């Protein structure tokens, strides 16, 4: 029996700026050729780590996993029998300070994804990369948003200002106007520390600390009233883990009862807002290793609609693919996580998924 499966996170990897050159203007090709600028070099995924590249994944055509359609097909889609896979691309556009260069690279990523992945492979959908300048991000959304194969806007979860901040309104406006959820994603290079207390020594800290960036973004989007201002706003937390979510909602709901005078536009509790307008991808699973204990955590999320399956290919996790779902999960919940929740949440997935 094959179960319908929507993989909400398959990562396309830009191996180097040369990959994008066909999609850059002659100006930027010349800059790259005549300067040492090689595009973004910051990455949340240092290539040799087992969290960045799943152990056992081979190169395909001498290119790393995720760099080519052949890899995505043979290593991500085929093994799971994926019906639809959503591509993200964590290339670090936000680390490029020159806004024109950042915008050009973001556009190049989107055009590369369309030409090399979406065009030849009907099972794929993609996320729109945007520069970290709100107005320019809105322009890019307007440029490619008419293509229904782009199903969400990709935003690195670490940012210089949280996405609820009103400077981002042009971006939110554009996303909502095009019926595109915002996908906040593991990583980001805003040039500011990944903790409230400065720069940690080790990568493993940065890896673990990413959960706090997701908490902060969600806090910001809710407190600023983004979900109230835009009832159509949808947010996906991708690569965030989910085990922290119950503790965070219990805290936020309690504090909200005490401080809601400050945010009168929040007419729902934070946990209700999350249930209505936020979804979370499965990997990396960050709960307890014991399946029964993990099921308890999933139950504590308070809704069967929150989790959406992701492989997070080619990243590495303790359990991969369908093994990431704990044994003993009720069949209805399993179906919802594997495909139903994504189909219901993404405005642009329904038609394609039904064939």
């Amino acid at each position, binding site marked *: 029996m094959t179960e319908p499966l929507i993989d909400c996170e398959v990562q396309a990897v830009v191996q180097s700026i040369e990959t994008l050159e066909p999609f850059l203007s002659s100006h930027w090709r010349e800059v790259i050729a005549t300067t040492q600028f090689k595009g973004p070099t910051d990455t949340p995924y240092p290539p040799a*780590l*087992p*969290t960045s590249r799943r152990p056992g994944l081979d190169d395909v055509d001498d290119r790393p996993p995720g760099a080519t359609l052949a890899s995505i097909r043979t290593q991500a889609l085929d093994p799971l029998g994926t019906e639809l896979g959503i591509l993200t691309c964590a290339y670090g556009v936000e680390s490029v300070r020159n806004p024109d260069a950042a915008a050009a690279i973001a556009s190049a990523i989107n055009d590369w994804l369309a030409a090399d992945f979406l065009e030849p492979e009907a099972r794929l959908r993609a996320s729109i990369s945007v520069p970290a300048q709100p107005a320019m991000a809105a322009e890019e959304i307007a440029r490619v948003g008419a293509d229904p194969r782009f199903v969400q806007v990709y935003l690195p979860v670490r*940012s*210089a*200002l*949280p996405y*609820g*901040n009103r400077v981002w309104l042009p971006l939110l406006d554009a996303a909502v106007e095009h019926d595109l959820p915002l996908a906040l994603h593991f990583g980001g290079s805003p040039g*500011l*520390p*990944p*903790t*409230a*207390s*400065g*720069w*940690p*020594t*080790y*990568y*493993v*800290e940065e*890896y*673990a*600390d990413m959960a*706090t*960036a997701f*908490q*902060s*973004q969600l*806090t*910001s989007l809710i*407190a*600023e009233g983004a979900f109230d201002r835009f009832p159509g706003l949808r947010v996906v937390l991708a690569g965030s*883990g989910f*085990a*922290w979510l119950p*503790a*965070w909602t*219990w*805290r936020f*709901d*309690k*504090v*909200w009862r005490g401080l*809601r*005078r*400050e945010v009168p536009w929040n007419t729902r509790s934070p946990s209700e807002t999350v249930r209505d307008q936020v979804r979370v991808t499965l990997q*990396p*699973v*960050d*709960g307890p*290793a014991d399946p029964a*204990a993990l099921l*308890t*955590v999933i139950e*504590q999320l308070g809704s069967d609609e929150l989790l959406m399956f992701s492989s997070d290919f080619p990243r590495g*996790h*303790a359990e991969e693919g369908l093994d990431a779902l704990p044994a003993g999960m009720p069949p209805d919940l399993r179906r919802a996580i594997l495909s139903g929740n994504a189909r219901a949440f993404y405005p642009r997935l329904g038609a394609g998924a039904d064939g």
Partner: protein
Amino acid sequence: MAERASGAVIDCDIHNAPASEAALHAYLPASWRERRAATARLDAVWESQRETLGDRSYLGSEYPRATPRAARTDAWPPNGGPPASNLPFLREQLLDRYGVEYGVLTPMLGAGEQLDHESGAALATAINEWQIAEWLDPEPRLRASINVAYEDADLAAAEIHRVADDGRFAQVLLLIRTAEPLGRRKYWRLYEAALEHDLPVGIHFGGWGRGPITSAGYGSFYIEDTVGMATAFQEQVTSMVCEGIFQRFPELKIVLIEGGIAWLAPLMWRLDRAWKQLRAEIPHVDRLPSEIIREHFWVTTQPIEEPPRRQDWPALLEQIGMNDRIMFATDYPHWDFDAPDRALPSFVDADVRQAIMSENARALYRFDA
């Protein structure tokens, strides 16, 4: 023991304050008194502790708060002065009213956040002397926290050595948002000094680092500051575990104050998983982070997270697995005060309740020794 302890309350977080800037300045070392008087900017204004006592501190994060001084509106002493500045009124409103057996003072007066570390050290000395003279001496139920200029570990260690022989100091006090993650070497001599005197290190809600208050930038509202403080706690535990300070200092005890408790379980799961995959980077961390955390950390309750479903309370305590490490706190006189008779739901087991309400703190701080 059990009989005496039944119903006992130990409050691990009481924010006493001086009646005025001048009241604290009387305890400054003479050489600093004049200098501070010349530079303190807002003598008469008690809008925020940072402004009141900050000569030069981290600036750029002002959030209008829920109430003046974030205090309960009924906590202003009838005969004047700011909340928790008047010992008789604090006795009436907190110690006597709830039968508090011991209360741990955690004054937050900016010593650790001075950009001029020597000025901060002088302020810390004044705060500690003020605690002795005006709180510990007249009220035997109170214990105190050693304030230090924690961004300079040598100055902090000197202050710890200076006052630690007074057994009424229960711990060293830091704030959770520091200039660097607390596992880093610059803080190690502070931990060494605390250990020399067998003192836990308490780390309290608050403080300003040197950048945005979250890893996603500055929020706009006090509610984000408050909710977001839990992220600073998670990041600091991560740093202290990953840097291996508990391998270097096997006796070190850390108390996390006013951070809540519920995030501990997911943090332990996350760190255990990260350690299994990435431990090659931190070979000095020789066992599961969750084991290290359960051995070296204590947490206080307020503002305790409140799961809406009854079954999630026992589930939460089981997930954390630190029933011997959770210690009750009121956070008096702040607006989000948790009352001793109402903080824990009625269905928490009696044994667990008593451990949390008094016995865990009694054992950690050795109050009966």
